[in-house]
């Protein structure tokens, strides 16, 4: 009986991972730091959007920001997540205050099947990038590129909910520090 595999996977090109799962629907997306820059590009004709689309998208992004942006119980926690100077105090409807990241722009994209436009607000992240309330991270608030359509899904509302404390905030980097000096973790 043969002691070796009939076939094996021969390549190390990342394809074992890239091929996995379903490929999501993609859409062309643009990001802008403010309404004026969106309108300026729309007027120059370099977009599929009209200035009026910009107005509607930005108004929607602003409303979504108020409703879904993360809220924190302390300025320090907010600044740790979004960078120093990028947070503001917000009065809570039921009394008291929370801290929210400032709106740092919006992402705008074409709905699938050309059924109009969609948008999401952007805020700063601690590492100099930008993120939607749903957690999609983009490098710039002034660029274009293909994006998973699901990045435009509205995030759950945070308004009226208890603000996040230090303990609630997503943490990263909790694995790896104990072996960090080694050249390889395997053997």
């Amino acid at each position, binding site marked *: 009986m043969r*002691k070796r595999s009939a076939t*094996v*996977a021969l390549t190390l090109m990342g394809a074992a991972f890239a091929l996995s799962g379903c490929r999501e629907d993609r859409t062309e997306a643009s990001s802008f730091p403010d309404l004026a820059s969106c309108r300026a590009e729309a007027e120059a004709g370099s977009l599929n959007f009209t200035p009026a689309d910009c107005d509607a998208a930005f108004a929607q992004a602003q409303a979504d920001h108020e409703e879904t942006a993360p809220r924190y119980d302390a300025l320090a926690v907010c600044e740790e997540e979004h960078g120093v100077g990028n947070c503001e105090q917000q009065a809570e409807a039921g009394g008291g205050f929370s801290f929210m990241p400032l709106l740092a722009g919006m992402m705008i994209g074409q709905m699938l099947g050309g059924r109009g436009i969609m948008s999401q607000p952007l805020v700063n992240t601690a590492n100099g990038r930008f993120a939607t309330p749903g957690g999609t991270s983009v490098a710039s608030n002034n660029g274009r590129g293909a994006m998973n359509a699901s990045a435009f899904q509205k995030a759950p509302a945070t308004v009226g909910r208890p603000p996040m404390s230090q303990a609630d905030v*997503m943490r*990263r*980097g909790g694995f790896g520090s*104990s072996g960090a000096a*080694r050249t*390889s973790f395997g*053997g």
Partner: protein
Amino acid sequence: MHKIALPERADLHAKAEEAGFSFLEMGGEPYWDETSAYAFTLEEVETRIEDPSSELHGMCRAAVERIVASEELMDRMGIPPGFRDLVATSWQRQEGELYGRMDLAYDGGDAKLLEYNADTPTSLYETAAFQWQWLEDQIAAGALPAGADQFNRLHEALAERFAAMFPPDHDIHFAAAAGHAEDYATVEALAWAAREGGMGAHYTDLGQIGLSAEGQFTDAEDRVIGTLFKLYPWEDIFADEFGAAIVPSGCRMIEPAWKALVSNKAILPVLWEMFEGHPNLLPAFFLDDVAGALRDGTGGSALLDRSRDALRTHVVKPFFSREGASVDIIEGGRPLETAHDRAYDQGAKIVQAYAPLPVFDGFRPVLGAWIVGEECVALGIREDRARITQDLSRFKPHFIAP
């Protein structure tokens, strides 16, 4: 076992590049070396390597059964108090093992277990795929006879094992530390096998793993990790900030936490106590128990007395060292050879009788017997000029002569 010279494939470098195998050389030294290869008979592979290694794995399982029932042994083996429940529960729930690699000293007689990397073995891609391709190419080129074979069901066995461990379409995240080509190659080879076994395979850098507000692990794109293969040792996890988050996360880990007991050289004295005299084991002891007896004859035990001759030349190894670090070979009280890398000097150690590796053309081969699930399924060989096989040793292909 013998070694023969063979022509290197003319298109070796093109083949490696095409495959994305980027570490043919490491640290300026050849790593993959096909200018010679080791030849075995089928009977030798089956009776000297395959069957004994499967049996050794079963003995390790028996040792785990005993260790998880003993707070004292868990303590001795360096499992921190806060993680003993995790280790024991993973065993009681029968969380299945995926893979491991036993390092064996073999000179034509009984193979001897040097140690068992049962948690994070690498060189998986070289063994399962690049070595396999080498055999196919050398047969096609007429350099090896058409009936030549190789002890290498590694890829197929892994695919079957994934399919046995998880339901179809189960999503598994594979995590390795960023920037280590060798580690990445191992997780990608595993991911190919997982896909073939019907799993969904996703990659995440180890350092990018996050912990959500709900206490679940998440990948770099904030997707929840339900099952995590981590090419990162349990003993390091125990010391990491996220170690304590594993139980509340509900995340299924591969390897399971009980492998922290197997991939730990402290299992070697436990095995020797349970199976003293087994032909594939070397006498082994906790250094704390025998240091006095070896130094000036004070203390000791009947078990030790029966192995005194075998221990005249012995090896001192840390519980958790990798790539030969902090290993010393002592002969008649004097160092015969010591590792340059002293990264693990501080930890607890064991003493094991020395089994000299055979020498072929100035190189000493160590056999890597690959276990998938509970069976030995493949062989990968590394050789070094030094007695202590270290991270710059060479990978050597092998074949079974018809």
